[in-house]
C-alpha cells in the first residue's frame, strides 16, 4: 500500500525539474541509476570496470536489448547494456510539447534515398534508454501464426525458424510483464489468455473506426495497448493526454524504460547511458568486447558475448562499421545480407472531416483497430486481394505539429489554405494502416561517406516499393476510404506516402547462406555475437513489431540461459 506524497506518479511534479541535463551528462554512474518511477529517487546499480570481462555486453536498451538485459541478469549473468541515448526521468523530464520532445528521437544524421525515400527521426527512430519504446504508440499485437511460415504456407517472403506455438508462450509472458490492456475477447487468431488489464475507453476517433467497420461488415476491437488502464505498482492508469508518441510523462505507458529495465537493475545489470558503441572488436573469430564513446572519450569494455540490439538501422551500421581484417565485409556478414532486406511497414492513411467534434488528440492515438485484412486472404468483390500479405488499420489522433505537417506535405496545403483548413482540426478523424511490405534485398542500409559527430560513417537508407507493396497500398486506401465515408467522413483524402517501423536487416533463418542469425539470434559466423531486435525479422507481418521483438528477446534469453546449464 502506497501513501501518496512519496514521490511516485500520483504526485503532481508541480515544482520539480531535475537539476541535471540527461542529454549531456550520464545519469547512470557512481553506483546508481535513476528510479524512473519516483521523483528524484535512485536505485543502486552494480557497475563493472571496463577491463572486467562481463558475460554480456548489449548494444541498445530498447524492445530487444532492454528485455534481453533483464532476463539475462535475472538468470544470474553479468550484463552491461549500452545506449547512445539519455536516461530520461519521464515524470520530471517530459514536457507536453511536440518540439521539445524531439529529444526522444534519433536526430543524428542519416541519408535516405531510393524510389521511396523513408522518413526517419520521429517517424521510427528513438534515441533513449528504453529505445523506441519510449516514444512508441504502445500497440501490442501478436503475429498471425501462419506468418512464421509465410514461404511454406502462403507462398511469399521467407520462413521464420520458429514455431508459433512456442512464440505463443512468450507472447503470454510479455503481455503479463507489460500488463497489456486489451479487450475481454479478441476477434482474431487462436485462443489466447485474457489480457491482464481491460481495454481503455475508446475516444470519438476510435468510434469512427468502429462505425466504419460495422458499416463494411468487418470486425473491429479496442486495441490492446501497453499502457495500463488500472494501476500497476507505481504506474498510475492512463490520463488520456494523447502525447504517447512524445513520451509518457505519467509512466502509465509500459515502455522498456519503466518495465524491464528497473527489473534488470534490480537483478544486477548495469546500464550505461550516453554511451555510443562505435565498433565491436573481434579476435580469432570471436567477439571480445565493444568500443564505446562516453564522457568525452573512447573506451573499451571486455565481454564474453556481445549482443547488437540497435534496431534495424544502427544494428547493420555497427556490424558494417566493425569490419576488420578478419571480417572485411563487416561482422556476421558471410551471407552478404547484413543491412539488406530492410522492411518498413506501410502507414498510409485516409482522413476526413466530420460534423461532430472529434478532438482526436485525446487519448492514445490508436484506440481501435481492425485486423480483418490480416486474416482474410481472399477478400471479396471490389476488395478481392491481389497481393500477398496483410494489413491492420487503426484510428489516429495527431497532435498539431504532426497534423499541420501532414496537411502541408501529404495534402499539399500551404498559405491561407493551410491555416484555414487547420481550423477544422477538432473535426478530423482518420484511419491508418500498418501494412506488410515484402522483403527485398535492394532495400538496404549501407555506409555513407558522411561522418557523424563521433567520426563514424553514417547510415544510408535505400528504399523502394515493389509491385506487391503498391497493390497492397491501393487496396488499403480504397477500403479505408470507403470505411471512413461510411462512418460519416466527408472530403476524404488519401495520405499515400508514409511508413513506420524498421525490420529485416539481420534476418534470422535456418540456413547460414540466406540468413545472418539462427533461431536463437546467434550469428552464424561468430558464435558469441548475437542480434536481438527488429533486424532479425524475415517477414514483417501486418502488425506493429514490438511485442514480437520482445517475445523473441525472452526466448533468446531462455535459450542462452539453458545452454549454460
Amino acid at each position: 500500500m502506497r501513501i501518496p506524497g512519496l514521490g511516485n506518479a500520483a504526485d503532481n511534479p508541480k515544482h520539480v525539474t531535475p537539476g541535471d541535463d540527461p542529454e549531456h551528462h550520464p545519469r547512470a554512474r557512481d553506483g546508481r541509476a535513476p528510479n524512473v518511477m519516483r521523483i528524484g529517487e535512485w536505485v543502486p546499480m552494480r557497475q563493472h570496470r571496463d577491463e572486467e570481462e562481463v558475460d554480456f555486453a548489449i548494444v541498445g536498451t530498447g524492445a530487444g536489448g532492454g528485455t534481453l538485459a533483464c532476463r539475462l541478469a535475472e538468470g544470474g549473468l553479468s550484463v552491461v547494456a549500452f545506449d547512445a541515448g539519455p536516461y530520461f526521468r519521464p515524470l520530471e523530464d517530459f514536457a507536453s510539447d511536440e518540439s521539445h520532445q524531439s529529444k526522444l528521437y534519433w536526430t543524428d544524421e542519416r541519408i535516405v534515398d531510393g524510389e521511396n525515400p523513408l522518413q526517419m527521426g520521429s517517424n521510427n527512430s528513438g534515441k533513449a534508454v528504453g529505445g523506441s519504446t519510449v516514444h512508441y504508440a504502445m500497440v501490442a499485437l501478436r503475429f498471425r501464426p501462419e506468418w512464421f511460415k509465410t514461404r511454406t504456407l502462403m507462398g511469399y517472403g521467407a520462413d521464420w525458424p520458429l514455431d508459433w506455438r512456442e512464440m505463443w508462450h512468450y507472447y503470454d509472458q510479455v503481455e503479463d510483464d507489460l500488463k497489456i490492456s486489451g479487450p475481454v475477447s479478441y476477434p482474431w487468431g487462436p485462443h489466447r489468455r485474457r489480457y491482464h488489464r481491460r481495454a481503455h475507453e475508446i475516444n470519438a476517433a476510435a468510434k469512427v473506426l468502429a462505425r466504419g467497420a460495422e458499416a463494411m461488415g468487418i470486425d473491429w476491437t479496442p486495441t490492446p495497448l501497453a499502457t495500463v488502464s488500472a494501476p500497476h505498482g507505481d504506474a498510475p492508469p492512463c490520463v488520456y493526454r494523447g502525447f504517447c508518441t512524445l513520451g509518457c510523462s505519467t509512466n502509465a505507458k509500459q515502455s522498456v524504460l519503466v518495465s524491464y529495465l528497473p527489473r534488470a537493475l534490480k537483478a544486477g545489470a548495469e546500464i550505461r547511458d550516453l554511451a555510443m558503441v562505435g565498433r565491436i572488436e573481434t579476435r580469432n573469430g570471436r567477439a571480445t568486447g565493444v568500443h564505446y564513446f562516453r564522457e568525452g572519450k573512447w573506451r573499451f569494455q571486455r565481454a564474453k558475448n556481445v549482443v547488437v540490439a540497435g534496431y534495424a538501422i544502427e544494428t547493420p551500421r555497427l556490424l558494417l562499421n566493425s569490419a576488420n581484417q578478419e571480417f572485411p565485409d563487416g561482422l556476421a556478414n558471410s551471407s552478404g545480407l547484413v543491412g539488406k532486406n530492410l522492411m518498413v511497414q506501410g502507414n498510409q492513411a485516409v482522413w476526413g472531416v466530420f460534423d461532430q467534434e472529434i478532438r482526436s488528440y485525446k487519448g492514445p492515438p490508436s484506440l481501435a483497430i481492425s485486423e480483418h485484412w490480416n486474416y482474410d486472404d481472399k477478400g471479396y468483390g471490389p476488395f478481392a486481394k491481389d497481393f500477398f500479405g496483410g494489413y491492420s488499420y487503426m484510428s489516429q489522433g495527431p497532435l498539431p505539429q504532426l497534423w499541420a505537417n501532414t496537411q502541408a506535405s501529404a495534402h499539399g496545403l500551404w498559405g491561407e489554405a493551410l491555416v484555414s483548413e487547420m481550423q477544422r482540426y477538432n473535426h478530423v478523424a482518420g484511419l491508418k494502416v500498418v501494412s506488410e511490405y515484402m522483403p527485398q534485398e535492394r532495400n538496404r542500409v549501407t555506409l555513407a561517406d558522411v561522418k557523424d559527430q563521433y567520426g563514424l560513417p553514417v547510415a544510408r537508407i535505400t528504399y523502394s516499393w515493389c509491385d506487391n507493396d503498391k497493390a497492397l497500398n491501393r487496396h488499403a486506401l480504397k477500403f479505408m476510404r470507403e470505411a471512413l465515408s461510411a462512418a460519416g467522413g466527408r472530403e476524404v483524402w488519401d495520405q499515400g506516402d508514409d511508413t513506420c517501423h524498421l525490420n529485416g536487416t539481420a534476418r534470422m533463418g535456418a540456413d547460414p547462406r540466406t540468413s545472418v542469425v539462427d533461431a536463437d539470434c546467434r550469428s552464424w559466423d561468430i558464435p558469441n555475437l548475437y542480434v536481438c531486435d527488429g533486424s532479425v525479422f524475415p517477414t514483417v507481418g501486418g502488425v506493429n513489431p514490438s511485442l514480437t521483438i520482445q517475445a523473441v528477446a525472452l526466448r533468446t534469453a531462455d535459450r542462452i540461459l539453458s545452454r549454460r546449464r
Partner: protein
Amino acid sequence: MRPRLDLYPGYDVLAKRDGPSWNAKTREVLEKRLAIGPETRRFFNEAEWSTMTALAERIVPQPADRADRVPVAALVDHKLATDTRDGYRNAELPDEREAWRLGLRALDSEARARFGTHFHELGAWAQDELLKLAEKGDLTGAVWEGMPSKLFFHQRILADVVKAYYAHPTAWNEIGWGGPASPRGYVRMDFDRRDPWEAAEAKPGREDEAYQENLQVGR
C-alpha cells in the same frame, strides 16, 4: 477555401499554465520559447532574414491585427542556430543549415531574375508564384547549385516553417487544441464532448456562449 474564423473566442492555452494541465518542465520549455521575440536572430544574416520573414508570411499567413503574433522566422532561426536536426535528409539535399542558406539565397536570386526586386520586396501574389514554381521543381537556375527546389520546398520550407508556427500557443488557440496535458489529461472523449479545460467551439449564432465558456478555461 474557407475564410479564417475566430472559432475559439476567448480561449487561451496559457491561462492553464499554473493549473494541473501543465507541469514544471512544460512551463520551463514554453517560457524559453515565448522568450524568442520576432526579431531574435542568431543564424540568418540580414539578407537571408528578410527573405525568411517574407517567406514565413506566405507559408503561414497571420492576421495583420493579431496581438500575439507567432515569430515564425525567429523560431526557424532558433532551430538552425541550435542545430536541431530531424535525423535524416534526402540524399539530394545538403544538411539543413546549408540547405536553408542556399535556398533563401536562391529564392531571392530568382525573384530578382524574374521580377527585378528582392523577394521580400515583392507583393504577395508574386511571392506565391515563385513559391509555387519552387514547389513544382521549376526553379532550376544555377544559383540552386544542384539542390532541387522541389525538395527544398517540401522538406525544408514546408516542414520547418509549418512546424514552427504550430509550436506556438497562438496557433494552438487558433485551432482549439487542448494544449499541454500533464498531469491532468482528459475525461470526456466522446463525440461533441469537451472537458471544462478545453476550448469551446463557437457555433454559428452562439459565439458568445463559447466566449463565456472559454473565459472559464484555466479558472
